[in-house]
């Protein structure tokens, strides 16, 4: 097989994001990460739902399952259970992941299927024109909330750590180096890897801008111990206005499929039914 190049990950689909959108950084870095990991397009499955972020799966040349808004994690877990030899990466908007799909996110962390869930967190519903997402700031004035959002924003990092999610990280779409490092680590991590990527939306969100992140983000350094759950929570819950980038938390929980392995075999084949059923029938006597 010829050596892989970045071009092998580029699709011909016309890009429909706004100029300057933070999604471009994620797209470029995703392609570079796949190349860096040496994963050929046909061994990669990108799963997404509906929104601006989810369009990313059309812009990468790879297998793509673009399903329903907020349901991407459900389809992805099953696809990975069945096609265990594929590298599965899910891309969601914050609306799909934490709003419509919040329940699936909660339970995917418990299930711990070996896949990577990248949430493009632009703190807004981009595609539907700027309504509040679960991570929009309290008081921020957006569509449908002319007086400002009344609810407290969700804290997805604290949520994930509190549920012992096996890999919890945050990165920034405009920090290509950091993002690539994190994506590669997340993809390599066996189990459900959750990456919240801060992604400026230049059309609807005047709060979480490139400048805002420039000012408030900081890199977690060696002093941070990602195996210390309470320490990770302290970082995620700090009310000092600083935004951590890096791997906040990780643990070594075994992924789902190995737990269940014995005797199940390849779920894509079902040629052995006559023999297997014959044995089973005898129980019904």
């Amino acid at each position, binding site marked *: 097989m010829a050596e892989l190049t970045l071009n092998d990950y580029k699709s011909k689909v016309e890009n429909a994001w706004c100029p300057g959108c933070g999604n471009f950084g994620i797209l470029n870095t995703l392609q570079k990460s796949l190349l860096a990991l040496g994963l050929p397009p046909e061994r990669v499955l990108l799963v997404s739902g509906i929104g601006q972020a989810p369009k990313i799966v059309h812009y990468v040349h790879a297998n793509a*399952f673009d*399903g329903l808004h907020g349901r991407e994690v459900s389809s992805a877990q099953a696809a990975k*259970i069945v*096609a265990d030899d*594929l590298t599965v990466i899910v891309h969601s908007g914050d609306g799909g992941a934490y709003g419509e799909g919040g329940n699936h996110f909660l*339970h995917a962390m418990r299930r711990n299927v070996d896949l990577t869930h990248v949430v493009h967190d632009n703190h807004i519903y981009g595609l539907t024109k700027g309504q509040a997402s679960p991570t929009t700031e309290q008081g921020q004035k957006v569509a449908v909330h002319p007086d400002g959002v009344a609810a407290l924003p969700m804290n997805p990092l604290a949520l994930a750590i509190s549920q012992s999610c096996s890999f919890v990280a945050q990165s920034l779409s405009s920090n290509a180096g950091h993002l690539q490092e994190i994506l590669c680590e997340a993809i390599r991590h066996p189990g459900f890897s959750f990456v919240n990527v801060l992604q400026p939306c230049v059309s609807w969100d005047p709060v979480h801008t490139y400048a805002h992140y420039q000012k408030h983000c900081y890199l977690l350094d060696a002093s941070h111990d990602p195996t210390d759950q309470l320490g990770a929570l302290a970082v995620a819950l700090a009310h000092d206005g600083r935004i951590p980038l890096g791997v906040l938390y990780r643990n070594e929980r075994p992924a789902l499929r190995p737990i269940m392995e014995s*005797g199940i075999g390849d*779920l*894509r084949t079902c040629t052995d039914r006559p023999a297997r059923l014959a044995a089973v029938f005898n129980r019904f006597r």
Partner: protein
Amino acid sequence: MEFNIRITGAAGQGMQTAADLLGRSLLRSGLHVYVHQDIESRIRGGINFSQLRCSDRPVHAPVERVDLLVSLSPESLRAHAPAVNAGGMIFATSAVEPADCPRCAPFVLSELARKAGNDKTVSTVAAAVAACALDLPAEILDTLVDERFGSSEKLLDVNRRAVQLTREAMLEAGLTGRLSLPGGSVSGTGASTDRLFVSGAASVALGALAGGCTFMAAYPMSPATGIMTTLSELTHDCGVWVEQAEDEIAAINMVAGASYAGARSMTASSGGGFALMTEGVSLLGMIECPAVIVIAQRPGPATGLPTRTAQGDLRLALNAGHGRFARVILAPRTVSEAYALTARAFDLAERYQIPVFVLTDQILQDCQTIIDRPDVPPVTRHVLTPEQAAALPFYERYAQTGDGISPMALPGQSRHVVCVDSDEHDPAGHLIEDAAGSAAMAAKRLRRIATVDAAAPLPECTSHDPALPLVVSWGTTAPVVVEALDALNAGSPRFNHLQVTQLWPLPDLRAIPAFAACSRLILVEHSVGDGLDGVLAQTQLRGVDAFIGKLDGRPFTVEELTARIGKEDHHG
């Protein structure tokens, strides 16, 4: 020749265990049985019953007649004693005044259990009472008790004792063989290795496996849960992954993901849980994804009657999901047909890349009967093999074809990527918005509908004379109608009978003379209306002249339908 045994008591008292022991005894005696469950939505207390219709020929329908009542609680005795027919017998856990109950056995079941050393053996006592009354070979029940309780010496001991004590009491009371069946003398297990004693739920599960199912995701909901339970117990034996999802929405979207990845996949729920899958059904339609969806019906709306039966979800299955796309709806009539149709559902789903619905109901899910050991032909896949995919110069998941069905490749099996999209998409599976591309893909979906329509089989019709009134039935109602009509047509034929097992798509039924010519159409459906009557109106432009429905969630019985259909042979 048949006898009906009703075992009743409070939830948790073991009526189902008793029925299971007895059912297997009948199986191994070379006889037949149809057991149906009448249960409340609670775990302990209340009044439930299992009714066993024991016969020398296959039986598939509930009757009201009770020849032998086994009652495990005072409340259930009070409730069910009146149902016992004149010559019938009653066995109870409390002494009943002879005045109240002249047909009562002279001993008390719970006392036998206590004597055996464990109150809980009362369910074994119940089974033994009935086995003795039917005079089934003693070694059969003995073997079954060994098999069931053999893992614990203590349990085995008390249960063996319970059987022994019951036999003695029956003999002493002169009740052994009081109900004897012609086949009752068939001894040993030899005569019946070619038959199985299976519940409807288990039959669906086994049929799914025969159809190649390797993935199920579902959320528990009565009366569907038994399918998931059965499959989960066969995980390692059959290589099937059962995922209990966090909700029904996750379940259907998992099914889509699993199916895309290459597993033959299914889910099961009841109406209210399935309702949550509606958007997912539309996803299946859009991405042309095979899936089997079992809807185990119960009365609605909303939570309704969780443990009761109905045939009220046909129009839901037919219309679930926005937008238009092909689907097939099947409804098994019997436990053995549940196996065959579920297996068939998997074939159709993959052949046409569509959702296929299997409509069952509480009465079918929870009933148990004796079926012939089913055939398990090898599964034929309708997806591209890795080699076939590799040989293609390029691959488009939604390639335009004459019949609207595009070759389906699996991701990761060749150098081609496989892309699917819930948005309108181009042949390669990428989202589009242009008018021409969108219209072309919509037209492809319409062609797929036509392809599936064209393959619709004609339903089975028993016709004596095309001019007679035609009774139409489907699902579990059909066998009840069959028996009712056996009675009603006994003298001279009065009714024809059309039994629909594929409810959608329906072919042009005028090809059936008894349908084309009939002046009076009588639909029997366990619903409050707006089921097959609506579908017949919509597809055949033919209204029904009489609708025999049901409001209370209890199953149709042969007696009831004999009476109700009997009134309907006047020409409207």
